[in-house]
Each structure stands twice: as C-alpha cells, then as structure tokens.
C-alpha cells in the first residue's frame, strides 16, 4: 500500500507563480480582516469563521488546480475561492446576507457555488458531506470524458465523521480523481486532536482505503503547492484519490464568539511565530522576488480593491421578503436546461455500441432467470406468491379490479360482509 510521503521534490516556480501565491495569501487575509471589522460593526449576519494562519493551505492547494477542475470549500477556505476567481464582493455580500450575493441572501458564509463557470460546489454545514459529493463529481467527469480533478477540504475534527469514511472508501473503490486536503489545525472547536483519535498523523486515515497520502507543513505555501500539484496530477492521471494532511494551527477561536481560552499559551506562541505570510515574505525577500517596493504596491492594490468591494457590499440592499418563498423546485428547462459537457463521443455509450464489456460477467448468469430457468428468486420468497390482482389498461389510465380467486390469496385477508 502506498506509504504516506512527506518529501516531494519541490519544482522551481516561475516568478509570477511565486508572486501569485503571495498575492492570494495577502488577499485571503485582508478579505477576512475586513470582515472582522465588519463583524465588530455588527454588519455580518450570523457567525464569522477565520482562517488566520491557515492561508497557505487554501491558497497553495487551490493554486494547483486547473480552470476545468472542481472544488468545494469548507468554512476556512475562502482563500481557495479567491484563487478560483471569486471576487471579494461575493464573500462580503454572502456574509452580510445581501441580495447581491451569489445566494441572494438565502445562505451565508462560503455557502455558495457556481456550476457553470468556476466549477465550485457549495458546502453545507454538516462536516464530511462534501467528500462523497466530490467523489461523484470526479466520477461524472471521467464518464463525460473530461480530465478533471475534484478537490475538497476537511478538518481534523471532520475526519471522524462517517461520511468522510464512506466518501473516501467509495472514491478508492472507484479510483476517482479526488484530492482531499485534511487541515489538521490541532483543534475541533474546543477539542484538541489528541482527544479525537490516538493518531500521530491523520494522514494515516488513508491507510484504511489503500490510497496514497502526503504530509505537509501547512504554513509553508511553496511546500503546500508542490505537494498539491503532485497529488492533483497523480489523481488526474488515474492514480486514484489522495489524502493530504497539512499540519497547521487555528489562530482564532472556532468562530468570532469563541475566545479560545482553552488553547495552551505555549502552543499559540509557537505557531504565531510561524505565520505563513511572514515566513513567505522572508523567503521571497531572500530570493529577491519581493522588495519593499513590491510589498508596498501589493498593500495599495489590496486596499483599493477591498475598499471598492466592501463599499459595493455595504451599499447593497437586503433581499426582498417575497424571495423567501421562491425557488424550492426547478420549474423545468426554462429554469435550468441541463446539458453536460461531453468530451467523448456519446454514441459509444448508447445501443447497440453501448455494450461496453462489463468488467466481469459470470457464466450462465445474469438474464432474469435462476439456474433453474424459472424467475430468479428475490427476497422474502415473493416468487411463491400468487397475483392478487390483474390489471386492465384503458387508454393509459389503469382501472384496477381484484380477481375473485386472487382476493382469497390476498395477504390482507378476505372481506366478510
């Protein structure tokens, strides 16, 4: 079984790639800091989650994806959305429940998606649910002939859910092109990882499915990107699902309301010294990729952008009440005309050619008959049962009439009058 592997040969990135990673990490942080200010001003509806100190993971992993690839974020993956091309205003309006948000105010936080262009699937709050869904995305992509990879994230805590297991197990059995990034930030709300499972490395979760895993320093964006890049290409080329454990730390509380006083001071101090952006700025400066001037430009660029985006969000209206009652059902082609993007000839999937050799057929089996040639037996000996009714068709509207003899046989008993 493939062992978990922490040494990935780090490719040399282009100058632009290095700067992209920097920009998106900065953008990720500034977007969240802006929202923290909005929260303090009571302009955020509901809770606010922070990925402070985990930006390298969201950014580094999502940056390894191609445009055609699919992802579904968790609460701390706003960085991944930004890399995929989501404008900050969408994040702001979502959190402020504005009518201009992707969900028009029907849902908040990073609970939104884009099936058409960005290939983003909206998460739900229930942890782990995204894993089988993204497995299905990868399976459908392969079926359609698209060479896509599906990526999603899960926390140390979320890896204890049953659906994490069912999803990765199905993905493994299907060799689905799925990459799951396990963000081990040492805490699930107030519960330290050590009290969730006696594992040194959560990457070992992968061993239950015979799939490859990686362990990476989640605060080193280049390492995260390199690992994700290798994983994504391996998955794309049919290597099956991959689990990446990124080791990091949740710097803020579970959400804004949580002061996280349960976190040992020493642990916090250790990780605050390892801020992923500070570390990366040091690296970029040493590598002469970033200088004070470049940094200043980025600062200004971000300030200008977020000012604009925030204003758009703040000036946006709340949704009109009528909207509450609309949209539970798709009303048909006019509402959604659903056509998959085929990248293979579909006639090879249809009769007569459709008869793709089944992986495995069994001698003299599989044609509606048991070995005896009689109807194949099914559960609870239904086969012995006699019909209770024969049905006549009158122009498509069946009038059902019970047969005398049959009525006696009815498991519901006869009618005494």
């Amino acid at each position, binding site marked *: 079984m493939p062992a978990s592997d922490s040494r990935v040969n780090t490719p040399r990135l282009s100058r632009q790639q290095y700067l992209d990673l920097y920009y998106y990490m900065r953008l990720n942080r500034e977007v969240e800091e802006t929202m923290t200010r909005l929260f303090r001003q009571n302009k955020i509806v509901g809770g606010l989650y922070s990925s402070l100190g985990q930006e390298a993971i969201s950014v580094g992993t999502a940056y390894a994806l191609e445009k055609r690839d699919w992802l579904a974020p968790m609460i701390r993956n706003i960085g991944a959305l930004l890399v995929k091309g989501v404008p900050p205003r969408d994040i702001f309006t979502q959190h402020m429940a504005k009518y201009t948000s992707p969900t028009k105010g029907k849902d908040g936080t990073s609970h939104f*998606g884009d*099936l058409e262009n960005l290939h983003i699937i*909206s998460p739900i709050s*229930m942890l782990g*649910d995204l894993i*089988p*869904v993204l*497995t*299905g995305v*990868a*399976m*459908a992509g392969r*079926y*359609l002939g698209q060479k896509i990879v599906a990526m999603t994230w899960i926390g140390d805590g979320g890896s204890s859910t*049953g*659906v994490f297991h*069912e999803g990765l197990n*199905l993905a493994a*059995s299907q060799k689905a092109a799925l990459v799951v990034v396990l963000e081990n930030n040492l805490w699930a709300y107030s519960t330290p990882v050590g009290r969730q499972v006696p594992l040194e490395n959560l990457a070992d979760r992968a061993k239950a499915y015979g799939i490859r895993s990686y362990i990476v320093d989640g605060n080193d964006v280049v390492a995260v990107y390199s690992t994700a890049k290798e994983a994504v290409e391996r998955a794309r080329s049919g290597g099956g699902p991959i689990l990446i454990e990124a080791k990091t730390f949740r710097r803020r509380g579970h959400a804004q309301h949580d002061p996280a006083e349960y976190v040992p001071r020493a642990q916090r101090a250790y990780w605050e010294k390892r801020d992923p952006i500070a570390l990366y700025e040091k690296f970029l400066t040493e590598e002469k990729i970033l200088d004070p001037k470049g940094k200043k430009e980025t600062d200004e660029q971000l300030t200008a952008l977020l000012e604009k985006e925030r204003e758009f969000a703040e000036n946006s209206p709340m949704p009109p009440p009528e909207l509450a009652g609309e*949209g*539970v*059902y*798709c009303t048909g*082609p006019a*509402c*959604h005309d659903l*056509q*998959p*993007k085929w990248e293979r000839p579909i006639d090879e999937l249809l*009769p007569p050619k459709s*008869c*793709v*050799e*089944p*992986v495995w*057929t069994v001698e003299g*089996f*599989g044609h*509606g008959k048991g070995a005896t040639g009689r109807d194949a037996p*099914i559960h*609870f000996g*239904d086969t012995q*049962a006699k*019909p*209770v*009714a*024969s*049905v*006549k*068709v009158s122009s*498509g509207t*069946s*009038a*059902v009439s019970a047969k005398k003899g049959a009525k006696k046989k*009815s*498991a*519901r*008993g006869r*009618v005494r*009058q």
Partner: protein
Amino acid sequence: MAPITFLEAIRQAMFEEMAADPRVVLIGEDVGVYGGAFKTSEGLLEQFGWERVIDTPISESAIIGAACGMSYLGLRPIAELQFIDFIACCFNQLTNFVAKGHYLWNAPAPMVVRGPAGAGVHGGPFHSLSPEMYFLHTPGFKIVYPSTPYDAKGLLKASIRDNNPVLFFEHKFLYRRIKEEIPPGDYTVPLGKAIVRREGKHLTLLSYAAMMHTSLEAADALGKEGIEVEVIDLRTLIPLDEETILNSVRKTNKCLVVHEDTKTGGIAGEIAAILSEKAFHDLDGPLVRVASLDTPVPYAPTLEEAFLPSAQKVFTAAKALARF
C-alpha cells in the same frame, strides 16, 4: 403484449431511459452483476457496461452524495437503495444536501432515489418502512409511490426526466403480485396527477401504493352493499393533486384516507388540514383515517396483519362513514 409485473415495469423504464439518454446512470449496491436484490436492474450491466451501472460498497451516504455530485455535472443518476429502510442511513445527505441545493444556491439535482418500500411480505421491522412522511415534510423533493405496473413505468420515466430530486418508492408487495398489460414503446405519466380508479358518489377514498389494491377490494365489497366509493390513487404525494381530491370531496362530501404508513403524523393528517382549509363546508362527516398501528412493523404474519390496514378494516370504516 403479455402483461408484465411491477418489477419488469421498473426494469423497462430504466432500460429505455438509459438506452435513450446517456446522461442516465444507475448506482447502488449489487445493482450490477446481480441485477439488484429484487432483479430490477437485471441485464443492465450487460447492456450498458460498468461506466453506467455502478456497484458500490455498502455506504448509502456515499451513494446519495455521489449521485448528487454526478447530477451537478449534468448527469441523471438513479440511486438505488437495496431496501428503502436504508434511507435512514443517508438522511442527512438527502435532507440537507440534495433537498436544499436549488433553493439556496440555484443548483438543481436531477436525480432519482428509488428502492423497495412497504410491508406485507414479512420483512420485519427493518425491511418494511413506509418512508413518505419524512420527506413530504422536507421541502425540495418530489415523491412518487405508484400502485400499478403501467404507472410505475410511466412515472419512473417522468421522474428520471424531471430536473428535481425525486424519491421513487416501489412497494415490494406489488413487485410480482400484480401483472398488467402496458402499451409498447415510450410513454410517461406526469408527476402531480392523481387518478380516479373507481367512481362513486357516497364517499371519497384516498390511497396509494399497495393500499390502493386493499382499498379497491373493500370498494368492491362496499359496492355490493350499495355504497359507491370513489377511489382515488394519489400516485404522487409531492406535488399533491389537490384539485382532483377537492373535486371528488365536493361531490361526495365525505373523505376516508387509507395509508400503510403509521397513523400519527401520517399523510391523512395533512389531507385533513387541507380539507379543513379548502373544503370545510363541503364535509358532511369527519375525515376518517385507516392506517397502520403506531408501532414498528412486527415480523410474525399474525402481528403484521394486525398492524396493517386490511380490506376488512377499510370496509368497516367506510361503512360507518357512509352511514354517518
């Protein structure tokens, strides 16, 4: 054409839809080489191959989640639950992920979840579930529960072509117990339309699935007593065909609901509320419920029979209501 079983109707619907539309795939436990625990997908693997007929590990949450993910890329997956009772094992995926997507982020999930439901075959407390109310109370699903092979085929085709998640319940008591001649070739039965199975003027009887046949059996007997029962097969529970229901009740002024599902919190209550709101002055008698006992489904035939509504129970209740 020779009459076909309910099972065969299901199989034909899936076969024809898969043959006509490459977006349709089947996913579930033992649906491939085995053809499904009840043989509803018999021969599909041979015809459509492993890409379109997918055997999964035993993991209902994964099956539903994956089907939902597939539907987001434009496929139309049919997810089979080996017994509908296992829908409890994917309840979260269904009610939180699948049901809410279109409302919240405009993501339609054109998928069908189907499987054998209902009691009467001594399946015991974990293989006899009537699941309808859990989902009737969860906005976002359409719910189909047919009673005849003709409807089963036509409604399943309509369900597969629908852009919404459809829960398609197949009553296993009917799988091989009823046969029906059906027209050759393609046809659909629209979702949301009930059908009058028997006309009558004295009272309206609403039912569906296996209880349809129990109700018709009772209606025959009542007819011999001069009580003409109008028997309506709801066929789809969401959308519910209120028009057909109200038209009949406004004519007969009395209503009896027969369902196999347990009584408390069953669909008869919802219908009682609808009639109270929309036909209060039309009712000359109370809405009467004939339903299963408020217990798990017991195993022994003697107990299961006592648990379930029977033609006799329907007969007695209807007679009393008619005389009311």
